[in-house]
């Protein structure tokens, strides 16, 4: 698949930005600056990046509790994200949502979600709306392997199939739902097989390879935009950190983590781009530094922002 250099560089930059954002969040959480629960996306950057590379600004996504990567890939502003994680009034949700609820409706980001499986029916609804309003917008619905067992996923997949809704269901199969390995939570090896039950295309791809994700998502987005209905893409991936920050990770071995880390999606993509001469060592450094500067700025913005006032508690309950 021929992909132009700008696109490739853009995807690489997105992945680096996600990695650095998440790395900084881990530090800030450890020092107590970020409260609540945070679920990091480190290791899974290729998935959001490869999918969102096909989305327009006016397309939609539904995200999950592990949503920072989806937001950045869809064009979210790290400053507003960081401020939200700090609980500041300048954040995306005025400090009311935090990590599990970050949303930017103007960018088509219909929210991270604290409920596993909360997203798929909402994705179907946004897709219904796109058709209803006569647009060719599409919806990418991110969900985990664990969420693939919730009734909501199956109900939404069926609805999207019978109504030919423009949804791309993207299963981020990182092989665990908290402590439970996929082998113990579902009887099939490939979530992609479940597409057949709803008569939609289903493919399993290497989620550590951004180009593989990009290619599969290209097909699915094209199909959705053309009005030919939903698809399911399963991306086999792995989270390098615990389920949430502070997870003792008693359920997996260091060796298993190390094995997957050898397939780090950023390192492998970088090597490939260097080989293709899309990247140079200088450019790699420049991208790293630019991402770092962006995250630094996001942190200063968050730190310098005010906390919400008590009266704001009562705002936005109703329209």
């Amino acid at each position: 698949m021929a992909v132009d250099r700008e696109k490739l560089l853009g995807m690489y930059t997105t992945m680096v930005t996600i990695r650095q954002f998440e790395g900084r969040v881990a530090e800030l959480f450890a020092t107590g600056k970020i409260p609540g629960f945070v679920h990091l996306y480190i290791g899974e950057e290729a998935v959001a990046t490869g999918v969102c590379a096909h989305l327009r600004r006016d397309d939609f996504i539904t995200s999950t509790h592990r949503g920072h990567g989806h937001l950045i890939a869809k064009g979210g502003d790290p400053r507003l994200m960081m401020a939200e994680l700090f609980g500041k009034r300048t954040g995306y949700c005025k400090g009311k949502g935090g990590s599990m609820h970050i949303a930017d409706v103007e960018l088509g980001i219909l929210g991270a979600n604290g409920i596993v499986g909360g997203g798929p029916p909402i994705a179907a609804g946004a897709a219904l709306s796109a058709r209803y309003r006569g647009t060719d917008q599409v919806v990418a619905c991110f969900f985990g392997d664990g969420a693939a067992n919730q009734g909501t996923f199956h109900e939404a997949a069926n609805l999207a199939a019978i109504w030919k809704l423009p949804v791309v269901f993207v299963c981020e199969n990182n092989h665990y739902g908290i402590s439970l390995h996929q082998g113990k939570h579902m009887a099939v090896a490939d979530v992609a097989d479940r597409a057949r039950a709803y008569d939609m295309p289903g493919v399993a791809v290497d989620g550590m390879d951004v180009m593989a994700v990009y290619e599969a998502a290209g097909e699915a987005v094209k199909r959705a935009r053309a009005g030919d209905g939903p698809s399911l893409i399963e991306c086999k991936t792995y989270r390098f950190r615990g389920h949430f920050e502070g997870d003792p990770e008693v359920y997996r071995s260091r060796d298993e983590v190390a094995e997957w880390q050898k397939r780090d999606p950023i390192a492998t993509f970088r090597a490939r781009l260097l080989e293709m001469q899309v990247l140079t060592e200088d450019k790699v450094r420049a991208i790293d530094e630019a991402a770092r500067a962006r995250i630094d700025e996001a942190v200063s913005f968050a730190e310098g922002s005010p906390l919400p006032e008590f009266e704001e508690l009562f705002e936005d309950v109703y329209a």
Partner: protein
Amino acid sequence: MATEVQVRTLTCAQALNEALKQEMRRDPAIYVAGEDVARYGGIFGVTAGLLEEFGEERVRDTPITESAIIGSAVGAAATGLRPVVELMFVDFIGVALDQLFNQAAKMRYMFGGKARLPLVLRTQCGGGMSAAAQHSQCLEAWFMHVPGLKVAVPSTPYDAKGLLVTAIRDDNPVVFIEHKMLYGVEGNVPEEPYAIPFGQADIKREGADVTVVATMLMVHKALAAAEQLSADGISVEVIDPRTLTPLDEDTIVESVRKTHRLVIVHEEVKRAGSGAEIAAVVAERALDYLDAPVQRVAAPFTPVPFSPPLEQRFIPDVPDIVKAVKAVVAA
């Protein structure tokens, strides 16, 4: 040789864990299931060690399928087992509500008494961890509103153990709600199994001037408020209902007849919270005894906010209780 009464200190989480283990040793029909309850021992550690002692048949990690977790407990309970299943956060009941309120709660009645549903749904509630709007709610009133369900809301390690034992031995579906900020709270817990009957409130502190009815975390805050108020010469009686269904109306009503003043404290939102029922009971049975309007100290009618300063203000605190008590005393 004189028998020594062993006084031990356990956390709420340890007390619950001990109740589970002792009951499982006693009755092989009991099994435990839920998300991350086996190998991980529960995300708050309540089911730690169960898998090692009782094995995979009786201690089951489930997929993330709350509807099937609760629904399968209904089917198992109706056919002779005694499931104790865990809903990781009470907020997730939305995913599974039908299996609880249309199936578990009504089956016996609809079948003309020909089914028994000895199941326990253990779950966890409350704010205090900046876990935001979908991981911090207090929803006791939802369960109280459904005939056929019993609702336990322990506040101390002693009560937690004794109430869980009763819940497990009860032949009805019990929603057993634990507060996340209480898991680490310590207290004396006897080692031998004991059962605390449902529908028996506990007077956590005796007093003469004002009755404060509080649940879960708010019991501790009410006790702290009572301590402060005693310095001002106000004697507060703190009552913990311990179960909301059945509700020990008599203990509450008797106390109000004595103190003539009532303050109700809970972490649920005020509107249609469990306190509304308690206030109504007192209005029906002891209105003439009241010297002041009933006061409710509860969360405001908003979702639970994420940002710590907002969440701190959202959750009722000791000064709010002190203020309400002073208001009913002044009235």
